[in-house]
């Protein structure tokens, strides 16, 4: 998978992962404040935050594996800097990363328009929900409540990760820091 990658691309993914691991951890705490009051549904509407690094990495580097590797690395780093969800979070990262990666794979790693990025956010939402359903024992909750959670999470994935990820990457492109990466040669992005 890494054969076609340049070292600077792998290091870039790692650095993005570090930045977003910190952001992720920040949002775990923001989510926690709510969760005490309204339960696990508190996380759902901001869930897209936790998919954003895979969208950004894939959109910048445009190579197979970018979405998956970045999400797993961010999860691992998040664990090592203090998310008490622990080793399990790496599995969460794997599951979420696979969801987005699958969507990019379906386009043959050739299309990176907004709708593809939103679909990738949707993909992560679906795979991660299946995982949470099992691990958190959602089978024990009202189906209506579970459906609401699912709906919120997919919308959040498409909006925060898909649209948000694109906006942030396009801004980064404008700063000139991404010169020399695939995104800067993609023509159809206005700088």
């Amino acid at each position: 998978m890494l054969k076609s990658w340049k070292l600077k691309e792998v290091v870039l993914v790692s650095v993005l992962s570090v930045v977003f691991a910190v952001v992720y951890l920040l949002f775990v705490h923001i989510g926690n404040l709510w969760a005490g009051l309204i339960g696990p549904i508190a996380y759902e509407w901001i869930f897209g935050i936790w998919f954003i690094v895979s969208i950004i990495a894939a959109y910048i580097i445009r190579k197979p594996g970018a979405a998956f590797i970045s999400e797993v690395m961010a999860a691992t780093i998040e664990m090592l800097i203090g998310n008490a969800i622990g080793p399990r979070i790496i599995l969460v990262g794997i599951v979420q990363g696979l969801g987005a990666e699958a969507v990019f794979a379906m386009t043959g790693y050739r299309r990176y328009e907004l709708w593809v990025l939103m679909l990738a956010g949707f993909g992560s939402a679906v795979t991660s929900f299946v995982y949470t359903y099992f691990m958190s024992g959602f089978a024990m909750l009202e189906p209506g409540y579970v459906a609401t959670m699912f709906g919120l999470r997919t919308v959040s994935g498409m909006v925060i990760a898909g649209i948000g990820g694109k906006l942030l990457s396009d801004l980064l492109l404008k700063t000139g820091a991404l010169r020399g990466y695939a995104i800067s040669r993609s023509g159809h992005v206005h700088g």
Partner: protein
Amino acid sequence: MSLHDMNPTIKFATFTLIMFGLALFYNPWTPLIIIVGTLMIQLMATDVSWKKWSLFTIPFLITALGTFWTTLVFGKDLGGETWVSILGQSISKQEFAVAVSLSMRVLAFTVLSLLFMLTTDSKRFVMSLMQQARLSPTIAYSALVGFRFLPLMQQELHQLQYAHRLRGVPLNTRWERIRHVPKLLLPLLAGSIRRAERIAFSMEARGFTGGKRTVYERIDIKPTDYVWSCVFFLLFGLSIWAGI
């Protein structure tokens, strides 16, 4: 035989398996036994700072509480005799037990995770994944570079905040600082990306290819690693038995 010395990959695999196993049980006793057992091991075989541990645990106590009462209120109707009544909802003994179990599960995950985190050195973990789990050296060393960036980024963040304050951005209260975070993210990312490229170049200039390389520091699997693994699985077995 401190837990700090346990092979990180074996430790990781053991803990992950137990956590998955835990997800299969819906009684309060199984997670409770895991919590008690894990804390006893932490007390006897590690020198984890309990103060640090408590700081990390607090947020997850809140999550556990949230899980507890959502399960009560939004939980599936399992039938049975009404035991108590909350907010006009009648709750049976079984339903109450499920709620306790799910919130205990959150705590059991937390306790195991913290034990892993507080007894595992990041660098050793990455090195061990490279040697035992065949993680690609390119990813492993890039991750180490990422870790080195953490203090650098913190430094840069302070410099940015200072400069922005000079320009009249109010950054005195906590809320003002949080509101300004999105404006810090972009310069921080742009700077980090430029630095990432420089560091990648200097790795390559020193002959790093991700290909064939010597392994100087071996992180081996010792018999005690298996002993530790068995201890944790025994604990898990005990907890399952207690739940029946």
